[in-house]
């Protein structure tokens, strides 16, 4: 599945991934392949991405929103450190 992490200043990350864990408002949750469509606001925290080759990438975000739909994830973050 595909993910895009976008801030107002730039596109931080884009790529094919296996899974992503995000700090949801009601607690952290993980998105795997064929996840149900969801829109959730995010707290400040860390986003963990597992890439296709099992490499782990992480970003510290300062709040945001995530939209998951048919294996396409868009993560709008206000700032990424």
């Amino acid at each position: 599945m595909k993910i895009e992490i976008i801030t107002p200043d730039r596109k931080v990350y884009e790529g094919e991934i296996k899974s992503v864990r995000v700090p949801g408002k009601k607690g952290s949750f993980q998105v795997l392949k064929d996840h149900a469509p969801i829109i959730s606001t995010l707290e400040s925290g860390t986003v963990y991405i597992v890439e296709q080759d099992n490499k782990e990438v992480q970003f510290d975000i300062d709040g945001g929103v995530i939209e998951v739909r048919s294996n396409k994830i868009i993560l709008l973050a206000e700032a990424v450190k």
Partner: protein
Amino acid sequence: MANLKAIRIRITSVKSTRQITSAMKMVAAAKLRKAQDKIVRLRPYANKLHEILVNLSQSLADAEIENVYSRASIPEKILIVVVTSNRGLCGAFNSNVVKEARRLVADNYYEQYKKGNVEFLAIGKKGYDTLRKMKFKIAAESNELLNDVTFEKVSALAEKVMYGFVRGDYDRVELIYNHFKNAAVQQLTTEVFLPVESKPEKGKASMPADYIYEPDKEAIVRELIPKSLKIQFYKAVLDSYVAENGARMTAMHKATDNATQMIRELTLQYNKARQAAITGQILEVVSGAEALK
């Protein structure tokens, strides 16, 4: 006819002016391109946010999305945010904004102004200086913002303004800035920043998938509204910054053209004067020789 030396000095000085204006034109063009890139990069974020917000608020009744930013009251205390530039030499860019600000105060907020309830937030030194000279009340200035326009800095300022609104320091916040149409055309824009008008937006209404909402629709909308406000603010400042460089580029282009024209005229004048001087000298020599015969 002016004497040769004076004309020569003028030609030199116009030439050096032309060099400066054409250099400034190049600088403005480079800055313009960089700033335009920033706007392009902002677009995906702004569009997505807008899309989510529109889709969500359509599925909610109007009453449910009442929030702190849409408090409707008779505007008593006004804040006008004027976005200008820090530097001059960009044509009518700054004076247009100031003129519009004065018009707005005179036409819409004269009552409040008389009570001293109209305040300004100046972004850009030029607008700040002019407004201060006109004895307007300036709540704050934020000039160093324009040295490097980043979302982080602009959103911090936007937050301050929004907080002022929520706290009741202001009942209405208006934004005045130049919208970038193309390098030669700036469109003066006045928009209401706060309160948020909950206008029912038409258009693409369908949300194809059945989403899970976390925590719930209202909470998401409530969280997204300030975000989209910040984006609106950032967009305005960035837009103005792009327009400023466009205006400066055009102004400097015209100045360079004028200098070239002037040099041509001066050179012509110089040559005419030189020829006249030579003719005069020949005449003197000839008539001197004639007298000796």
